[in-house]
């Protein structure tokens, strides 16, 4: 168990190390999620709109 405790304590620098990794992954996951969801929303909106205009599909 003291190995796990040492891992969390990071040699007394827990605030700095975990703060840094926390911010990094909060931003990385947040941006990733927002980007992916933005794409999904547009794919769905496009599917709805293209269903409303079947005649024009495939024509320039």
């Amino acid at each position, binding site marked *: 168990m003291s190995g796990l405790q040492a891992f969390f304590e*990071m040699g007394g*620098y827990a605030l700095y*190390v975990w703060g840094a990794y926390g911010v990094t992954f909060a931003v990385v996951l947040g941006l*990733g999620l927002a980007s992916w969801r933005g794409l999904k929303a*547009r794919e769905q909106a*496009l599917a709805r709109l293209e269903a409303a*205009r079947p005649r024009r599909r495939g024509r320039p």
Partner: protein
Amino acid sequence: MFTRLANPTRFLGLADRLLPWLAGATVSAFAAGLAWGLVLSPPDYQQGDTVRIMYVHVPAAWLALSIYLFMAAASVVGLVWKHPLADLAAKSAAPIGTAFCLIALVTGSLWGEPMWGAWWRWDPRLTAMLVLFFLYLGYLGLWAAIEPPDRAAQAAAILAIIGAVNVPIVKFSVDWWSSLHQPASVMRLDGPTIDPSILWPLLVNALAFHLYVATVLVWRLKAELLDRRLRALTLALAERT
């Protein structure tokens, strides 16, 4: 190759084939990088466990700089050759670069406090990175504030190109001026000076960050292309009724 990719439909097809691989590789690389950086690598003899901050701080800073250069290059291509995807590629990359610039600044601050005794100094490199952050915000602001999109693209492209001068300033600031920030220990002409036990986790995390950028860039570029199609369809529908 780039003229073939200029066709949005072809790009979208390629993107759909690449994305599962990119996303999977990103997750794997991050898992490996985290394990290596947080657990398997040793603490530094001087900096102790704070050296682990380097594994997120340095890749974030590297990418904040290279993404801005990518935006500047894409902006030139958009302005000069009118490549249809170029401006959208720059626009898609910008939020990612902004995020990494923010990560670099915050993680740097969290590293600076225990090591230098300062959350912030008006040091040449830190100041130049803060300027880069404002350039990123300005770029995003131009896209958000200007209509129609073609004019926004032009204005943003000019900001990206002019701002690119800041990138070598950040990079060489530690050589040109007396700086609190340590000089380069990886990207040097005579090779890295870091011990392999610390260099390797750094490189694995850098790979993870690069794969992440590729994945998110493709997602965002796809979204931009779909946006264009949505606008065109909405316009056409409105004209019919």
